[in-house]
């Protein structure tokens, strides 16, 4: 009697210890993130003001100036890359979700996995070879092509996975009403999985927003405001890279400010994706 009692005690203590360990380790996981955010905010918040967000950079030695060119460039790159990657990625995802087996489908799936694993710098080189060399100039377009290639696997996979979750009985309900296959896919299956597709798109955007490597020899960077697709543009990560590797402390401060803006943007994307996934989730 006594032994079994203390046995249970021991078990409860072990249980508690284990729980404590799990909680501790979970906290340990958050620590690096908190440190990063703390560091960026501490160093970056000082330079952030209206001028920083809306003015162009000034030459070294002058005070003031901002990151408007990089903000505009990043937005332009995101929009262009999305225009390329979203239609292709969503269509491919629909195809893969509909075509569960078959050579072409498995081939596409394999390609997407491989593409996901290719280092971004390599994708940048390819975009350089395709677009920059053939057009003879660095450009927003070439940067967008590189970024679009990076978005593709994320969008394709999330589209395929969410559409797979749409129950077959909905498809059958539609077909049984005499609705054609194409309309069934477009009007029943895709809308039922729309939140998942949107979430995937936002995560893909979050993923490419911080990319520097593929832009080094495509978008290239540009200290002036440019909204021309065929001209070089700046982007936040490129600007951070250029400022942070400069020898001037004022520019280092600017790099921190830009980093803060970038991190806030990416976290906003992730957060929005979460909210959409939760709020608009279709209940089957």
């Amino acid at each position: 009697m006594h032994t079994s009692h203390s046995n249970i005690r021991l078990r409860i203590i072990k249980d508690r210890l284990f729980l404590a360990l799990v909680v501790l380790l979970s906290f340990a996981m958050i620590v690096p993130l908190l440190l990063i955010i703390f560091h960026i905010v501490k160093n970056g918040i000082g330079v952030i003001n209206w001028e920083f967000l809306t003015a162009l950079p000034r030459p070294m030695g002058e005070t003031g100036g901002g990151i408007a060119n990089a903000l505009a460039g990043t937005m332009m790159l995101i929009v262009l890359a999305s225009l390329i990657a979203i239609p292709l990625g969503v269509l491919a995802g629909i195809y893969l979700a509909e075509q569960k087996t078959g050579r072409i489908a498995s081939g596409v799936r394999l390609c997407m996995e491989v593409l996901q694993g290719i280092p971004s710098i390599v994708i940048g080189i390819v975009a350089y070879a395709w677009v920059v060399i053939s057009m003879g100039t660095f450009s927003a377009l070439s940067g967008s092509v590189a970024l679009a290639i990076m978005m593709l696997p994320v969008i394709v996979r999330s589209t395929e996975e969410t559409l797979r979750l749409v129950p077959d009985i909905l498809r059958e309900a539609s077909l049984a009403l005499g609705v054609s296959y194409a309309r069934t896919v477009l009007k029943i299956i895709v809308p039922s999985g729309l939140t998942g597709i949107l979430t995937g798109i936002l995560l893909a955007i979050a993923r490419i927003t911080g990319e520097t490597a593929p832009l080094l020899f495509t978008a290239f960077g540009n200290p002036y405001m440019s909204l021309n697709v065929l001209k070089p543009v700046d982007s936040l990560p490129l600007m951070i890279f250029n400022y942070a590797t400069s020898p001037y402390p004022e520019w280092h401060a600017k790099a921190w400010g830009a980093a803060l803006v970038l991190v806030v943007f990416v976290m906003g994307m992730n957060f929005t994706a979460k909210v959409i996934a939760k709020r608009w989730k279709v209940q089957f």
Partner: protein
Amino acid sequence: MESPVLRVENFSAHFGDNPVLKDINLSVQHNRVTALMGPSGCGKTTLIRCINRMHELIVDAGVEGSIYLHDEDLYKMNPIMVRKKIGMVFQRPNPFPTMSIYDNVVAGYNLNGIKIKREEKDRIVEESLRKAALWEEVRDRLHRKGSFLSGGQQQRLCIARALAMNPDILLMDEPTSALDPKATAHIEQLISELKNNVTILLVTHNIAQAARVSDFTAFLYLGDLVEFGTTEKLFTVPDDKRTEEYLSGKFG
């Protein structure tokens, strides 16, 4: 006697090289309820899915023989036309989760791109929901999502959705198997009322249900149509020993 709405003649169906229906002959009378019963796996669902040409959507599935709808061979028609004329209610209620109750009822029109006037739509929605005995319960939340309804209400919504298309025949695949006794009674009541206006082919493996609501009953066993006749005859003086055994609960 009137000529039947639907005639199934020497009809066989298979999945790959697995024969599931063997040489079925059956006719469905105008504005009557015909029940298809039999133990699980005997091919009931397959048979009604052949009638609205859903069977062929499955890889490697195929059929032989013919099915006539008013003397027109279904398998020579465009499957989309067939499905517009033959409505279907599934085993599990499947309203479209992205659509309101209203849009669910007229989904057959909207999805097919059939343009109709707003007043006409309102009329179809009300009429179909009334026929499906759901109108009173949902009339003041027509524009809310259909997936908030109870299971029985969802199933009646699906019935309304099928009825809205004015089908020649309504196929119902165990429409009450996912429902509780009260909702089941409700749907059975509904079937008895509906048959004044529509021909119904009802799959059930609930013997009592077949007896309660149908005028004709077909008994399928392992892909064979063992016996087919008026419900009264089949339940009182069945010709075949297997029918008798099934009715007395020896299998299934």
